[in-house]
């Protein structure tokens, strides 16, 4: 038979886990003694990645690794996933990198990788720095505060989904 205090502490734990889940990977303040959650930089431009956010978080490495082999070894170019396109949208300036004069992927990629203790070799060779003229995916300027644009975009997507237009 469990004591009331045990049940209470269990309930508290559950609540804490749910709260963490809701907080997700965004900006929940670090509890004392915890590793701070990653504070991912907002994209430089674009409102929609090539896949939904949860898919990208789960699978981006698979996408990039498969496509790198196809690009390098088979010569297939211009496919959906591209590290240069990551740079195109997600490279942002940060005071940590080149005094904020350079847009790089560091503020975006490194946050989660450090949190998850993932050590990757990509940036030993790929600089992750934005160079004018690379990347082709997104040309929609980022305006993350512009709720109106997003609402219209969502309405468009919903309408398309319901209309079942299969082009």
């Amino acid at each position: 038979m469990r004591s009331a205090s045990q049940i209470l502490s269990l309930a508290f734990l559950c609540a804490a886990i749910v709260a963490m889940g809701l907080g997700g990977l965004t900006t929940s303040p670090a509890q004392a003694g915890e590793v701070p959650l990653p504070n991912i930089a907002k994209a430089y431009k674009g409102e929609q990645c090539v896949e939904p956010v949860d898919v990208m978080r789960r699978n981006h490495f698979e996408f990039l690794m498969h496509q790198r082999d196809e690009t390098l070894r088979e010569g297939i170019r211009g496919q959906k996933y591209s590290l240069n396109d990551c740079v195109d949208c997600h490279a942002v300036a940060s005071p940590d990198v080149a005094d904020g004069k350079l847009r790089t992927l560091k503020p975006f990629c490194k946050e989660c990788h450090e949190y998850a203790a993932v050590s990757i070799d990509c940036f030993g060779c790929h600089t992750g720095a934005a160079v004018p003229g690379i990347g082709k995916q997104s040309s929609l300027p980022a305006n993350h505060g512009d709720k109106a644009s997003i609402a219209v975009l969502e309405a468009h997507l919903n309408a398309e989904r319901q209309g079942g237009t299969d082009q």
Partner: protein
Amino acid sequence: MNEKTMSTPETDVDTSRRNLLKGGAAAAVVTLAPGVTLRTVEAAVTGPATSAQRWGMLIDATAPEHLWDLAVEACKAEQGWGPEYNTSGKANPLTDPQWIRKVSVKDPKTGAKATLPVMCQHCAKPPCVDVCPTGASMKRADGIVLVDKHICIGCRYCMMACPYSCRSFVHEDVKNQRPHMPRGKGTVESCTLCVHRVDAGQKPACVEALNNAGSNAIIFGDLNDPNSDISRAVAKHVTQRIRADLDLEPGVHYRGI
């Protein structure tokens, strides 16, 4: 990304996104509302490389020597190699990579001289590929020999196997790599025949630099296409390949050595 998109079921979002992207040509503009447009720029997918093509070069070794310096500089600028890309900032001539170099040769009996650029010869039977223990050293279907640096372990076996000494090992940390040519310490590299440009329908940087200088000393093209400039030139002139005795069938031909 806003909350609503994140919480939408994955399949739904996926479908609509696909439809949005499938919708068309190189650049599709969808007008959502007055003043709000969604522009999806999707590059056409090209490739894969096939054996229908065999990329090669014909180098005229009788051309003025200064042109080869131009070719080397063009390569450095395009691919981002040379002392200025060392993190140390210092030149180490014994170990710095050389993707293409100017070589002077002399016949000891007759005294005849020639100066020519030597880079990866893009062999049809590349010994560097034969010896690679990881499969990093590879030949594309269209004959371009490359190093897949993702799986190169830096053993340098290919460098020993190459009869042309055309591969280099990156001994130092490098910086300011070009987006199309990631380079890093501990891997082997060599001339890629500017594969990123070739795939985009352009000529290699060295060839373009010479063309811009008004010279046709290097002709680039498809050796399998009988109507290409290079095929016509190879049919017209007597050409040779360096160390033809090794029977590696390089894609780089020379004349006037």
